[in-house]
């Protein structure tokens, strides 16, 4: 007896397998693959029957040898995927917010408000609206003349030439306004655009929207999964808000074109005292539509300033609590976006309130 303990081969193999799991698994796979190759070369007609053996061997090897390592690697990969997903979604949400706060349509020239539509609007105005307005004006001229003549009563020489002149002078002024109504409406648009550009230049000089990503050292899968879900909701909300903003701005642009196209017809009613309220109401509505653009610009500037300031003073993620604070912060900023989208929807009615409509 030399005092050493005799250990059998199977026990040695199991001990080796337990201590070197990955290596043992690779050896098993290599052995089984070699065996299968030899068998298939010996009898090719039975090669199909060996396939399940290969799959089973690899699965067993994986279970015996690589389970722990595989789970660790998979966990790390899942964390990376979740983090990358969060950062991608946040970047996408920020780009959507940048796109929605782009004031291109609000500050563009009248011709480029809706590209390609201006020539159509001008054609309709010149060929349809102005002739109709001139017909309306002629009707009012005839009515005015009849009124002057009817004042004369039964007297033969009682028509006042001053009243007669006044009717034609008013007619001349109104005809000039109707003929150049398109350019007058464009002039109004350009005057309000000065206000819009001034608001935009003042607001966007100091605010820049940035959102920090989730750093590499954040590893908790549960937290990252929650962050991914929140980021997904943020993307959906920002898309919705951007859609609302774009829709409201587009509706304003279409409204401006429609008002301009048929502007000469309501303006023709300005000549008569009884129907003057139609023209004044139309002009007030048009100014309200233009003013809504200034309100929208102010809202977008405020939105960029508030969210930009929040992102500049954003919470740095160092532990679980700061991570939760970060998620709460970006969720609250989304609420701000929803509030501003609602304000964008209400901007038209606010502008009408300003004009007393």
């Amino acid at each position, binding site marked *: 007896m030399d005092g050493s303990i005799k250990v059998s081969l199977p026990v040695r193999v199991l001990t080796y397998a337990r201590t070197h799991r990955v290596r043992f698994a690779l050896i098993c796979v290599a052995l089984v693959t070699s065996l299968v190759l030899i068998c298939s070369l010996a009898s090719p007609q039975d090669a199909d029957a060996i396939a399940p053996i290969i799959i089973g061997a690899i699965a067993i090897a994986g279970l015996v040898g690589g389970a722990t390592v595989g789970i660790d690697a998979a966990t790390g990969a899942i964390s990376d995927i979740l983090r990358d997903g969060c950062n991608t979604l946040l970047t996408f949400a920020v780009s959507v917010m940048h796109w929605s706060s782009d004031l291109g349509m609000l500050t563009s020239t009248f011709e480029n408000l809706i590209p390609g539509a201006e020539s159509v609007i001008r054609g309709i105005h010149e060929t349809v609206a102005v002739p109709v307005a001139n017909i309306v004006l002629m009707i009012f001229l005839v009515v005015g003349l009849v009124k002057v003549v009817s004042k004369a009563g039964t007297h033969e020489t009682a028509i006042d030439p001053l009243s007669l002149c006044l009717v*034609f002078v008013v007619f001349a002024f109104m005809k*000039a306004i109707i003929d150049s109504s398109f350019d007058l409406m464009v002039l109004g648009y350009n005057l309000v655009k000065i206000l819009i550009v001034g608001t935009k230049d003042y607001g966007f000089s100091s605010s820049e929207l940035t959102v920090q990503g989730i750093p590499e050292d954040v590893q908790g899968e549960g937290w990252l999964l929650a962050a991914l879900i929140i980021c997904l909701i943020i993307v959906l909300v920002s898309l919705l808000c951007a859609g609302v903003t774009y829709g409201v701005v587009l509706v304003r642009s279409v409204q401006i074109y429609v008002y301009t196209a048929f502007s000469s017809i309501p303006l023709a009613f300005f000549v008569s005292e009884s129907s003057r309220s139609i023209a004044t109401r139309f002009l007030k509505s048009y100014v309200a539509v233009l003013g809504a653009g200034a309100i929208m610009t102010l809202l977008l500037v405020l939105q960029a300033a508030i969210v930009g300031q929040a992102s500049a003073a954003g919470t740095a993620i160092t532990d679980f609590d700061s991570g939760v604070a970060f998620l709460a912060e970006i969720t609250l900023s989304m609420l701000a976006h929803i509030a501003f989208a609602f304000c964008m929807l209400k901007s038209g009615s606010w502008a009408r309130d300003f004009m007393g409509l």
Partner: protein
Amino acid sequence: MRQFRDKLKELMSTRLDRDQALQLSVVLFICALGLSLAISGIIHLIIGAVI
């Protein structure tokens, strides 16, 4: 100038019968068309100066 003003006052104080009013209306209509063209030109000049 004074003669022109007196003449204008006299003309404006004159009461017209219907035939005279019709003739004056035709003249005034043509003058109004010309005046509207002139006003349109002035409006375009102002718009061009503003824009």
